[in-house]
């Protein structure tokens, strides 16, 4: 279950060494924006050693490499892939060709290292207008793509609009991303909320993303992780209801009924599908039946 993804600057040992303890389901070890150009070599080696040595068993490891228009991305992959991060995040992905270029490089590396194909998955970061327009093509460009991630800061600059807390300016992009990702059968992650001190705004923003269908949300502050995890977890009442739905269906089947209703409402296929999703999520989080009571 990956609800929260926490950005950690790749060249700051003090933060990296405690990254696994900050409550996030995944950490994004950042070699891109958080690292100045003359420290790319240092960050790459530090992140490699951190993944090799530290215990990240509590969370997934995602490494954000530098974009394809830099001189750094191949060296990033050469250094990082041998220590088997779960994901590579590719920033500024705008076309399916970007995914294919990165995928080919990863496939060759995996072969060279003797890794099984698709050991390392790819999460394109979509943060340009062209990327949003191509979201479905990007999501389906390679089998390696397992999730899309929307980055609103760069996107709004590209859209020539202001980034606001209300986020009206990214409504279309958010919707488009969710539809593209779901159509492609991959997960989809929302942009971070950047005001570290506004917990209420953070929660509202996360609720909005959840309502639109996002799988989870990234964060630049450990203080936001708990909120994101809470918002993107099923509530105990939802879990109990999901079990009731499946029970009613099972009973209906046993009694040979065609249509089943619960609490005066017909249970149709979408309700059953949602109940199954809720239970899968609850099981992944270790939440059992009846714990709401």
């Amino acid at each position, binding site marked *: 279950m990956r609800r929260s993804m926490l950005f950690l600057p790749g060249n700051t040992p003090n933060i990296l060494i*405690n990254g696994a*303890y*900050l409550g996030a389901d995944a950490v994004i070890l950042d070699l891109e924006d958080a690292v100045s150009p003359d420290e790319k070599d240092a960050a790459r080696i530090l992140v490699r050693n951190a993944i090799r040595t*530290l*215990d990240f068993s509590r969370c997934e490891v995602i490494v954000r490499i530098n974009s394809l228009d830099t001189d750094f991305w191949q060296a990033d992959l050469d250094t990082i892939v041998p220590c088997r991060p779960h994901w590579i995040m590719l920033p500024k992905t705008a076309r399916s060709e970007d995914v294919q270029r990165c995928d080919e490089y990863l496939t060759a590396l995996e072969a060279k290292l003797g890794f099984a194909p698709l050991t390392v998955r790819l999460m394109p970061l979509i943060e340009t207008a062209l990327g949003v327009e191509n979201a479905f093509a990007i999501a389906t460009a390679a089998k390696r793509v397992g999730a899309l991630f929307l980055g609103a800061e760069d996107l709004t600059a590209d859209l020539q609009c202001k980034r606001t807390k209300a986020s009206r300016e990214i409504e279309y992009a958010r919707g488009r991303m969710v539809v593209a990702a779901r159509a492609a059968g991959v997960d989809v992650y929302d942009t971070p909320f950047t005001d570290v001190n506004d917990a209420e705004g953070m929660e509202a923003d996360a609720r909005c993303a959840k309502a639109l269908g996002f799988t989870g949300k990234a964060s630049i502050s*450990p203080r936001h992780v708990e909120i994101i995890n809470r918002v993107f977890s099923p509530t105990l009442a939802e879990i109990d209801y999901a079990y009731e739905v499946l029970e009613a269906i099972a009973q209906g089947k046993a009694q040979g009924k065609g249509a089943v209703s619960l609490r005066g409402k017909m249970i149709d296929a979408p309700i059953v599908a949602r109940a199954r999703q809720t239970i899968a999520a609850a099981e992944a989080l270790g939440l059992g039946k009846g714990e709401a009571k």
Partner: protein
Amino acid sequence: MTKVVSSLREAIERAGLKDGMTVSFHHHLRNGDYVLNMVMQEIADLGVGGLTVNASSLFDVHLPLLDHIQSGVVSTLQTDYMAAGLGRAISRGAMANPVQFRTHGGRPADMARGVTPVDVAFIAAPACDCMGNCSGKFGPSACGSLGYAMADARYAKHVVIITDHLVPYPLQGWSIPETEVDSVVTVDSIGDPKGIVSGTTRITRDPVGLVMASYAARVIEHSGLLKDGFSFQTGAGGASLAAASFLKDIMLRDKIRGSFGLGGITGYMVDMLRAGCFEKLMDVQCFDLQAVESLREDPRHQEISAMHYASPVTKSAVVDSLDVVILGATEVDTDFNVNVHTDSNGYIMGGSGGHSDTAAGAKLSMIIAPLFRARLPIVTDRVHCISTPGKDIDVLVTQAGIAVNPKNGELADRLRSAGLPIVDIRALKEKAEGLTGKPAHLPQGQRVVADVISRDGQLLDQIRSVER
């Protein structure tokens, strides 16, 4: 009649101070205190020597004490806390006699029991009248509570008040009454307000501190103690304050009305009082100006003496009624013994203060400490110094999990079923050593440089010199 004498020298002479006597000081002016150095210099100039200095705490502003130790003016130190600069010199062997460390409750208890008689108490007071009624609540050097000084005033044979703010008789709202005072001295300034109020009493922004604070608040939430009438003490460290802030959110959300907040009081505790989390604050010491102002203005904010706070020999003390205390540690061992006296190299850099008093009294005593600091694991096989015995510690909270003292199995079950990550304390040690490597064992020095005396007067541990 007036008790005001013309000079500090006259006050010392009138007190009849002689070689080998004991003088005492309080630490409410903290690292801004001018009075201890001023008095000791005057005593040195008078040629008196071989003195015992009994101070409720010593800060690095008191480094001139080292000169008086070297010249023989001071031969013994008794204190509850010693900052790192002084501590380093003591650990290196600056004194022939071991320092006697007590607790904030044990100090007045040993005065009352006659174990540590005080000949002359020198009490810095931010406001005082000509007969010695004095208070910390008013004046340019206001420091709030004078809780620790109350013991000195009560038990010393001779009491000198030193003030920079003489007010007309009678001072209203006194903390120490004229009945206990022999003379009053006025000086230009008793302290530097910037050092009086420690600037470090802020909520942490450190992510690890916030994770620990969140765990700590949830431990309290699920301890079974968080209900109407709840009482609470926390330190002034960043993670402890963050824990208090998270606790406040839980109390307001669940509409829990606590009974009192205790201790060294910060603005965060004042906020909790004002928000309705507590009915009262019991204040032995103010840690910031907001606490000073609240003590002055709000009748629900009550000043208490060190005896009332923590003494084991009074008929009762507030710590005996305390539900939860959050404390710090430099080291914790696998038997839950806590060190707050020395750093990981064995140098003195602290002291119990109220640590072991509150740990002994509270129903739930919780240590917050990171898994490791600067590559040194917090959990060790055996702490360098036992400041608070493990029998009085219930829970250790780290970012990598929460260890519950095995004596408290029911609490462990409660916390586990609330979904908190409960781990064996030995697993925390192994996890930390997996990251840091196992530190080489440091040889201890030959000499005993300090005795750690428990709140009930027993020798709890000894601190040895550092000879590297």
